[in-house]
């Protein structure tokens, strides 16, 4: 990879990374949301792989492979299994904020991300830190998905988007935090998703659906 094409590839992968997050807000069908999330996992792995090739770091390329397996393979598979018997019919029926407003919010959040990350880019300007705003935008969009969707599974996808954004920030800003922390984080993420999957299954047996509108028994 030449030095001229490196920022180009990086920008391309970051663009795909951000676009898939917006796509999750746009689609109603849960199965489509999971497919978009898997695609985002590929984009994340690509970002890390491009960084690895640029820095001639075999370690980063291997980590990229691992990330790809986890984020584009294992996690989407687990989410898919939580969909249950009729994956094609599961839809996000009545989000708190409708799709048009969600997309506008995504645009606003992206602008916000560019505004708040200016000190981060200014500290060490480089092609990698230049796309930090995209990663932070994915964090914000993930959080937005988490709070505005009613289906249990859409909330899980929102949480996973948030986490992808944080992982991307970690690699872009620091070329990866210490290995022991990274291992702990990946392990924790996997466990959280497993916990959420068990709970989704139990929620479905207890409430008959995983629509969180049913979760109204505890309130003040």
């Amino acid at each position: 990879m030449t030095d001229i094409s490196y920022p180009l590839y990086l920008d391309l992968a970051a663009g795909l990374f951000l676009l898939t997050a917006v796509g999750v807000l746009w689609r109603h069908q849960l199965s489509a949301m999971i497919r978009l999330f898997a695609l985002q996992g590929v984009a994340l792995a690509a970002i890390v792989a491009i960084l690895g090739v640029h820095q001639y770091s075999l370690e980063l390329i291997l980590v990229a492979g691992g990330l790809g397996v986890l984020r584009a393979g294992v996690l989407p598979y687990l989410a898919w299994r939580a969909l249950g018997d009729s994956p094609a019919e599961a839809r996000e029926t009545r989000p708190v904020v409708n799709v048009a407003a969600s997309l506008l919010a995504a645009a606003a959040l992206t602008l916000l991300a560019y505004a708040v990350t200016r000190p981060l880019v200014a500290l060490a300007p480089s092609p990698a830190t230049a796309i930090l705003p995209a990663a932070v935008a994915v964090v914000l969009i993930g959080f937005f998905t988490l709070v505005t969707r009613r289906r249990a599974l859409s909330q899980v996808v929102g949480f996973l988007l948030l986490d992808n954004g944080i992982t991307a920030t970690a690699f872009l800003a620091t070329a990866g935090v210490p290995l022991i922390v990274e291992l702990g984080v990946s392990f924790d993420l996997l466990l959280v998703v497993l916990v959420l999957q068990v709970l989704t299954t139990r929620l479905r047996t207890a409430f008959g659906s995983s629509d969180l509108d049913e979760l109204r028994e505890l309130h003040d």
Partner: protein
Amino acid sequence: MTTALLLAPIGLPVAAALVYAAVGWRPRTSAWAGVVSTALLAGNALGLAATVTRHGPVHTAGGLIRADALSAWMLLGIAAVALLACWASPSYLAAGHTSARQARRYGVLLHLFIAAMATAVLAGNLGILWVAVEATTIVTAFLVGHERSRTALEAAWKYVVICSAAIAIAFLGLILLYYAAQHAGLSAEQALDWATLAAHAHQLDPAVTRIAVGLAVLGFGAKAGLVPLHAWLPDAHSQAPAPVSALMSGVLLPVALYAVLRIKTIADPALGAGYLRTLLMILALATLALAAVLLIGQRDFKRMLAYSSMEHMGLIALAAAIGTRLAIAALLLHMAGHGLAKTVAFLSSGHILHRHNSSQITDVRALATRMPLLAGLFGLAIVALLGFPPAALFASELGIARAGADAGLSWATAAAFAFVVVAFAAITAHTGRMLLGPPTGTASNEVSDPPAALARSAAPPLIAGLLGVAALGVALGPVAGLLHAAATIVGAP
């Protein structure tokens, strides 16, 4: 020797968890393994406290595990509450008609939970601290959903989703802190080590550190029940089994605030005291206001205790915002006193719940005449929580108020204590209604036990907890040196 003292607090609970995984929960034998393990943990914590008071901070495993006076103080609190919770567990499970499989899982998860909290306070690296705090969320999710009822599942779901998202935000904060540290010339191993970070704090880029600290405090603050991501707390604390509620409220919330204190030791030299003071003051006042308002109309006594925890965490955040040495000493004393008193309150509320099959305040009447021992223990725990002497909370609240006035924050402190007074009135009214009142009326769904039926094995841990909170309020004795050393680590002179 120090290595053993530092590693045993993590190893002992893990060993107890393995025992439960291997032999299950047997009422007469293995049920007490947890008590033995946590009693050893308490002894271990005392040993560690003596070591750090005498020789200063100690570390092992290349600095990944580190203890100073603050860690030792937190570990003492964890050990004390864990001991009470494990001591009370056999009688709680016996009263709840738990299946053998559920009891085994309870034993395993409870001790993994204790191990995760011990790891959090002994971690020398903010990354490990983060992993341990996240692990507590995962382990306790299943403990909250232990009863498998619809409400328990709902609480567990909210708990995992909100806390994982919040803690992920804290992780983003840590990543940015690491980024700032790397550009300040720290190596990869040192860049999340809190001792090194605090020593090199003035070299960190202020703009990046400001974002990092803000995110980390919001994230860990959510795990401590501070506004704005507090919605999980009343649900989780009211639905979990009583010993788990006691641990979650009595020590897990302080452990999350411990993370905030560690970040404060880095943020203050890097950004000046004003930034974190403003942030924490806003969080503290908002939390206190919300808890006080929601306490007024509360109809469920376990939720009442949960909101009371939020109120106390708000006070602790206020003390952290004030940040002088007196404020931090009061904060640490408040953590310990609240931990013990809230443990007794939750454990006795668990017995009340079992006897009435309801956690509604209106379903509990004239407890003082029908179950005098239980009513007395619950009442005394509430009195301690309200801050009457000789409870430690009296001294600590006085200390916080005094420190606030000294630091020139009289108005904010006065506002905070106004909310505390509202909460005081609400809790007094609700508790009075439960303990007193005419004995007739709503006896419909009550389990027909003899009136004084609090099993004899259930009372000792509650009495021990009350004695502990009173003793702490009267004299600190041998731990005074430890408290002073711990307050010096965080507090501004």
